[in-house]
């Protein structure tokens, strides 16, 4: 099947009109076009290129929080010093996506809408409490990111819906976050397992915690049992180990060429523990 219709949108309204007519959006193309090249799927018959839409650009940090336009690139996110300092897990994630070419072209909107269970930015954004705004010709809705994903490559978005922006509330004082993946090489890699942690500390006690797992279940999701193991604790080795074990227990990994399910489950505890340690160190810094 070849592409029979292609338009470059100049505005969000242009995009929504094209989507209503059955077109699929393409941003950086690093999933959509690459998937077609490697033969996994063919290109959609009708495409709307959204990469020139100014309203979808931008990375804005304010006292209230962070707003990412759907077109914010991994490069723009990981180079932002305020994101590195206050939304560290997200910066950790964007820094290790692909190579510098992938980071320059790949967008946050494409990363989330591609909904890979191994994708880097989902776990950090779930821990940070992100919401996403979806808009179609019929209207707009804002949902929690955790509710966006329904399965590998699947989201609740209707075909006519465009991801407009990602909003992240400002973390409370005393909060640190981190994302880590088990990798066999440092770049051009897919997470074997990944873990995100966000912790808030107050006077030696952990007062809030959010832990998410990556490449360990059909969707990226948070792990309430691991959070419970940390909240109210001193954030010491025993609490970290209990939280790591809780992540392993909650996981349902697959076996593939990159690792067996048993290995992934064992490493889930280790990687989650390290992510929590790093988040705690940042919270206390």
């Amino acid at each position, binding site marked *: 099947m070849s592409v029979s219709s*292609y338009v470059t949108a100049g505005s969000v309204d242009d995009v929504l009109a094209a989507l209503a007519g059955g077109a699929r959006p393409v941003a950086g193309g690093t999933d959509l076009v690459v998937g077609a090249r490697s033969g996994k799927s063919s290109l959609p018959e009708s495409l709307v290129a959204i990469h020139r839409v100014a309203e979808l650009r931008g990375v804005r940090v304010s006292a209230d929080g962070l707003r990412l336009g759907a077109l914010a690139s991994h490069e723009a996110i990981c180079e932002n010093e305020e994101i590195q300092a206050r939304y560290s897990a997200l910066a950790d994630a964007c820094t290790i996506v692909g190579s*510098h070419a992938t980071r320059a072209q790949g967008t946050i909107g494409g990363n989330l809408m591609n909904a890979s269970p191994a994708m880097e930015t989902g776990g950090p954004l779930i821990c940070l409490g992100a919401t996403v705004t979806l808009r179609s010709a019929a209207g707009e809705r804002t949902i929690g990111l955790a509710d966006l994903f329904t399965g590998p490559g699947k989201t609740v978005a209707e075909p006519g819906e465009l991801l407009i922006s990602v909003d992240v509330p400002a973390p409370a004082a005393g909060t640190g976050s981190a994302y880590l993946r088990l990798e066999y090489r440092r770049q051009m890699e897919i997470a074997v397992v990944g873990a995100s942690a966000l912790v808030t500390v107050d006077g030696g006690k952990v007062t809030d915690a959010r832990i998410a797992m990556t490449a360990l279940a059909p969707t990226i999701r948070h792990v309430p049992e691991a959070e419970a193991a940390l909240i109210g604790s001193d954030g010491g080795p025993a609490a970290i180990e209990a939280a790591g074990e809780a992540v392993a227990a909650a996981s349902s990994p697959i076996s593939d060429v990159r690792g067996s399910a048993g290995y992934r489950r064992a490493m889930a505890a280790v990687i989650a523990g390290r992510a929590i340690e790093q988040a705690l160190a940042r919270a206390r810094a």
Partner: protein
Amino acid sequence: MKVATTLTVNEIAYPVELDPGTNLLAAVRDVIGLTGSKEGCDDSECGACMMLLDGKPVNSCSYLALQAEGSEITTVEGLATGEKLAPLQAAFLSEGGVQCGFCTPGMLISATALLDQNPSPSEDEVRIALSGNLCRCTGYDGIIKAVLSVANAV
């Protein structure tokens, strides 16, 4: 269906007619005729096809040519000034960074993007930046040395 568009490569505007599914590498090599950029893997793994799009690296085999309309595209042919090689090109020659040469156009573009952004990278930063560029001759040490020699000269 063919779409008429203009692609600007190395500061020259080329009017072209393309099938919308055409990738940027095919447009530049087969339609425009600039064959410096190479096709290695054709699915964004090797970097042999790397070009600059408004100064940022892109794996052109996996980028729709029509999306590059309105952007400045730079290929390896655009690095030299007339007969005078760019410092990185000269360094690849003097440091032994070229064996069969197949990866070289992509390596040069990737290193150009790195040095534009970070004029004095550490060896580790060079290795990280070039990790999306595979050299099937495995001549990485000469390539890294060449990039570092230019980085240290500026």
